[in-house]
């Protein structure tokens, strides 16, 4: 049987049409695609950030108060590891000279020198940890949080080297035995995974505020949307002078200290 060039092209065209109709039929056959929603109660912000009112922290809190740290430890199953260099910390306190190196000038009031500054992940706008992570296990959320995907972390610790604030901890050993009281709603971590403060993203998702902010009896921690001029955070920042940790590095930290 001989086919003309014309017939060949016709058959070819019909075949191509038939093949492409498969996708169309598929699209119509699917009644509904699976949907993923956010909780309607979830807090929303362009950029979550925090201000720490150090005066309130020192003056209204009891001497040696660690309510915020304890609340965080409990909420996130943070292990209490006795070996100092293997410690896991999300929020902790630091002396002025260590929290703000390069900004100390030896003439500060004694109070500033001696009192503790609460430090945590700064959720930088230009987060160095995010830039160096080879697996994108740490990444920026659309709402400004520097997030960790523990599942994806391979434990290379590049992020720890990159973070200028020492806000990241590595799990040198299985942390489970060192967690005093396990919170069943939050996972523990595995050995070989880096972890840090996540601004309580799991609590924000259900409309709560971070555990440390909630726990602070003297309301020294102010949490809110840095991009919203009406937020409590922005009002606090507008009314008081504030400093940041290592601003010269250009990381644009999201944690402010009201002096």
């Amino acid at each position: 049987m001989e086919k003309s060039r014309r017939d060949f092209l016709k058959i070819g065209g019909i075949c191509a049409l038939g093949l492409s109709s498969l996708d169309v039929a598929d699209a119509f056959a699917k009644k509904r695609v699976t949907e993923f929603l956010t909780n309607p109660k979830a807090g929303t912000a362009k950029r979550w950030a925090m201000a720490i009112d150090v005066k309130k922290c020192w003056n209204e809190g009891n001497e040696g108060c660690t309510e915020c740290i304890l609340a965080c430890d409990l909420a996130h199953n943070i292990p209490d590891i006795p070996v100092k260099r293997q410690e896991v910390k999300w929020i902790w306190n630091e002396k002025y000279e260590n929290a703000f190196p390069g900004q100390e000038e030896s003439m500060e009031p004694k109070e500033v020198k001696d009192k503790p500054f609460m430090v945590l992940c700064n959720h930088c706008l230009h987060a160095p940890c995010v830039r160096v992570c080879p697996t994108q296990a740490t990444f920026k959320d659309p709402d400004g949080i520097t997030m960790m995907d523990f599942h994806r972390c391979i434990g290379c610790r590049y992020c720890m080297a990159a973070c200028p604030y020492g806000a990241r901890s590595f799990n040198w050993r299985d942390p489970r035995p060192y967690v005093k009281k396990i919170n069943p709603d939050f996972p523990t971590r595995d050995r070989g995974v880096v972890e840090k403060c996540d601004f309580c993203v799991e609590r924000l998702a259900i409309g709560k505020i971070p555990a440390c902010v909630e726990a602070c009896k003297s309301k020294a921690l102010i949490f809110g949307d840095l991009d919203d001029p009406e937020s409590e955070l922005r009002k606090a920042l507008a009314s008081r002078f504030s400093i940041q940790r290592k601003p010269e590095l250009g990381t644009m930290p999201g944690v402010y200290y009201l002096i």
Partner: protein
Amino acid sequence: MKIYDGKYILIGLLVFVGLATFPIWFDHGKAVAPADPSLNTPVIAGMMVKHCILPKDQMITEHMKLLNVWRTEVVRYGKRVYVAPNGEKYEMSLETECFRCHSNKAEFCDRCHNFAGLDKASDPYCFSCHVVPSEKKPGAVAMVGKESK
């Protein structure tokens, strides 16, 4: 036909075939106990219509894929509510959603995972971080075990 050292070669071949087929004839004819994952938990017992997030067959073969999708949606996109094909909404969380009904990891998850040959070393390592209900309140699993007897 003459085979040099034929006696040794044939014996060697027989031994080899015997060893190579060992897994086949050793287990031949033995009945393997079914995995029999238990659905006997207080929450499931209290359900009017017993159903999971997806149809049973799909859950058996695809639960790991579903969990992987959930992980991505929750951790990376901040979406925490899953709308199942039947329109029901679920919180995408192993701890608060899966374990709400399947509070018996040892009799449910483990039985199938062991049956499928996922031994301790290759066990899905979900549970090295995600908290298993028995760790929530000690004795919870034992209680369920008693009820099933």
